[in-house]
């Protein structure tokens, strides 16, 4: 199967509100799949459902043909789903290396392997000098790199990125794009939720558009952007 | 014969519930805004009572005047406690447990040293009325009226005044209210004062019925805590419902099981409710 992630008819309700309405999509192995949509369209909710923090009312999630719909979040991490949260979320009072090492320890049984992988991930993201520091001392770019390191270290099958370009300068964003491309070429599939279309278009193979919990378009970035429904939905939103 | 028991249960359930309501709403309001219980609440209860007692006994003031002064004193003391002991500790809310508890101990010790352990009492509203054949001190009616009045005033205040709405906003979210231009610390101050007034009023109204000792603050505190937990932190209507559930349950259990278990049966109920619905009856889920 070339699909590494498959979401079937995901429906999530909060009280009377339907945040996600029968959302279905597939992500092919090795691709970079973008999810876009205006604020409140359900993008982050969808990521929460995929990672297991929320339980959908209906729907199934399959990772590499394995049904993970009923698995707890930490179990999904061990099976190969890694996630970067929106808004630079790390453990604020644990040193940088520990932020990464905790992931490694959970994924790899062996302590020495975990430590080795942690060093590698920190080197890859350029954080080795700051390894003993607290995240509060890092610049926004380095914080993003820390989140990236947490994803890398677990060698995931699928990495979910929630607005990775937020808060970065255009130079930093280009570096991020390079990193994503590099690790994509090494075999990691990416699902990127992003608001800044400019950067997403540069890296995504395919893109899905959500609006108010419903998928309204899917396909190549160039095509989706010209879709009249999509344009209407984004009108007035910068 | 059985009909009599029901009369008693009904009547005194209503009366007791109204006392619980009285000392819970002040506590509830403050808990809702500060997000942390004020364990010195019971202290304000005994504080106003002792002040009123001293004013009547040593300055021969009219009870009503003494009561007003005592209640205002409690409000001010509440404000003082808020400023000195709660506000600086807001950085680490857990510590407020300890600081307010320490204040409660200070009050208890102080009154123990100054006033001794002998119970004191305050003047009762005179007269007795027969309800359904049961003699009831008129003071209970005063308490019932005061309780419903305090509750209604608070509800109106919270719904229709600017300050009241600010209090509700801050209770909902400190961040959101800041964005709306409200200063949560100012609101906290007002809430402390009001909570003190309510605690003080409760003390002054209930002491005539239940003699006062320095340790008398804990009972109301625990009950208020349990009731607010049941009704939902920050929900005034929740406090109303919970007070009556508590009162009725306790009274009924007293007649069925005897006073021992009866006093904790509401607590067991509350634990059961909280396990399945931690935010209480009317509370907001996190």
């Amino acid at each position, binding site marked *: 199967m070339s699909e590494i992630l498959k979401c079937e008819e995901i429906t999530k309700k909060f009280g009377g509100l339907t945040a996600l309405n029968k959302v279905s999509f597939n992500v092919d192995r090795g691709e970079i799949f973008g999810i876009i949509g205006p604020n409140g369209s359900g993008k982050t909710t969808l990521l929460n459902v995929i*990672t*297991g*923090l929320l339980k959908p009312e209906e729907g199934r999630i399959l990772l590499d043909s394995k049904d993970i719909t009923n698995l*707890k979040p*930490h*179990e999904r*991490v*061990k099976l190969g789903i890694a*996630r970067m*949260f929106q808004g630079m*979320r*790390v*453990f*604020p*009072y*644990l040193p940088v*290396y520990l932020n990464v090492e*905790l*992931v490694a*320890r959970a994924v790899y049984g062996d302590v020495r392997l975990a*430590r080795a992988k942690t060093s590698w991930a920190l080197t890859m993201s350029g954080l*080795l000098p700051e*390894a*003993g520091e607290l995240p509060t001392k890092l610049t926004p770019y380095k914080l993003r790199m820390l989140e990236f390191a*947490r994803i890398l270290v677990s060698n995931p099958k699928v990495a979910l990125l929630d607005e990775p370009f937020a808060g970065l300068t255009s130079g930093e964003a280009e570096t991020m794009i390079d990193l994503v491309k590099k690790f994509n070429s090494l075999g990691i599939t990416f699902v990127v939720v992003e608001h800044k279309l400019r950067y997403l278009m540069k890296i995504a193979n395919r893109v899905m558009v959500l609006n108010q919990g419903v998928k309204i378009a899917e396909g190549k970035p160039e095509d989706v952007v010209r879709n009249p429904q999509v344009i209407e939905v984004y009108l007035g939103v910068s | 014969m059985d009909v009599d028991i029901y009369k008693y249960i009904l009547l005194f359930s209503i009366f007791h519930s109204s006392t619980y309501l009285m000392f819970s709403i002040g506590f509830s309001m403050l808990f809702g805004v500060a*997000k*942390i219980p004020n364990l010195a609440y019971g202290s304000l209860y005994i504080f106003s009572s002792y002040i009123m007692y001293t004013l009547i006994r040593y300055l021969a003031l009219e009870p009503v005047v003494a009561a007003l002064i005592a209640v205002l004193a409690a409000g001010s003391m509440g404000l003082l406690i808020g400023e000195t*002991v709660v506000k600086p*500790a807001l*950085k*680490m809310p*857990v*510590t407020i*447990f*300890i*600081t307010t508890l*320490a*204040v409660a*101990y*200070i009050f208890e*010790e*102080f009154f123990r040293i100054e006033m001794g352990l002998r119970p004191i009492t305050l003047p009762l509203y005179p007269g007795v009325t027969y309800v359904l054949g049961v003699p009831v001190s008129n003071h209970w009616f005063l308490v019932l009226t005061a309780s419903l009045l305090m509750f209604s005033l608070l509800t109106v205040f919270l719904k229709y005044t600017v300050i009241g709405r600010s209090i509700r906003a801050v209770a909902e979210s400190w961040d959101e209210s800041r964005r709306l231009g409200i200063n949560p610390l100012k609101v906290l101050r007002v809430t402390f004062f009001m909570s003190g007034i309510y605690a003080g009023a409760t003390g002054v109204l209930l002491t005539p019925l239940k003699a006062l000792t320095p340790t008398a603050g804990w009972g109301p505190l625990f009950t208020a*805590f*349990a009731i607010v*937990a049941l009704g939902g*932190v920050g929900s005034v209507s929740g406090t109303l419902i919970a007070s009556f559930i508590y009162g009725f349950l306790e009274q009924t259990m007293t007649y069925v099981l*005897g006073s*021992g*278990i009866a*006093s*904790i049966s509401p*607590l*067991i109920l*509350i*634990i059961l409710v*909280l*396990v399945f619905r*931690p*935010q209480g009856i009317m509370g907001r889920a*996190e």
Partner: protein
Amino acid sequence: MVFVKRSARDLIISKTPFLAVLAALALLPLLGVGGYWLDVLTRVNLFLLVTLAIDLYSGTTYYLNLGISFTFGFAGYALALLNVYYSIPTEYSLLLAIPISVFFSLVILLPSLKIRGVYFAILSLLVPIVYIGIVTAQPFSLYLGGEGGLRFKQLFLDFARSLPSDVRLVFLQYSYYYISLAAAVIGYLVAYKIGFSEFGFMLRAIGQDEELAEGTGINTLKVKIIGYLISSSYVSIAGALYASMRPPVTVDLVVPANTLIPPLTSAIVGGLGTVVGPTIANYLLLLTYELMWGFIGRWRVIVYMLLLITIIVIRPQGLIFKIYLDLKKRLRGVLRE
């Protein structure tokens, strides 16, 4: 990686204060410190276990388990019940009471482990209150001793009776003291190990961002349960030992003001999440309280409470650990010259 191996000299220097204090405490009875203060220290040693329990669990995960006084007192009641109704000698009752207390604490608080924040604290606080109500209420008070408490045979009493009469009391006092000291030392060392192990870091991760911890691959439920087991084991051991040395067992052991607040204060003032801070605070605060009796008498409660308030208000995050670190830095600086 990025850690520098500490030199042997550094290691010895850093352990010296601990060893010195330990030696002093161990030698106290031999230096002539007598009855009253030995009892006080015995109590303070056992309270250290409770302080560490709070620090290790609530201090890391920020799940405020205020039902600790229930666990403490329940261990005592379990001990007494085993001794009185099942005629099990106190020494064995003591050992049995610990797992019984841990089990009940787990069962009672388990449903609330999924509840966050303030609500968990509220719920846990109600547990000891309800327990007190049950024990002192009519049907149960007959079996559980009610207000007066349940009388049982004190620890080592049988053995003490076989000794000459003038040695009996001293024997009991000394044996209690050394047991409590051993428990305190072991508890401290284990807490240190746990606090800075991977498990300890996982607890902290949960406290800092539980959702993120789940997303980090940490099985938060398992970690919380194990953490709670460790914490209540500490408290159960302390409670069982404490009760065994002071019959009768009464509800005073369950009153939060007696067995929750002092250790909680020590943990907070000492610095939640550190091990040294709460330990120092535990001894400092509790011994100061005792010392005040001699100097201030009647006003000691008020003065002490004011002192506590001041300490907390000055620095809610905990004063003692910070002072400790500053002193250590200065000491290291001095020793280098």
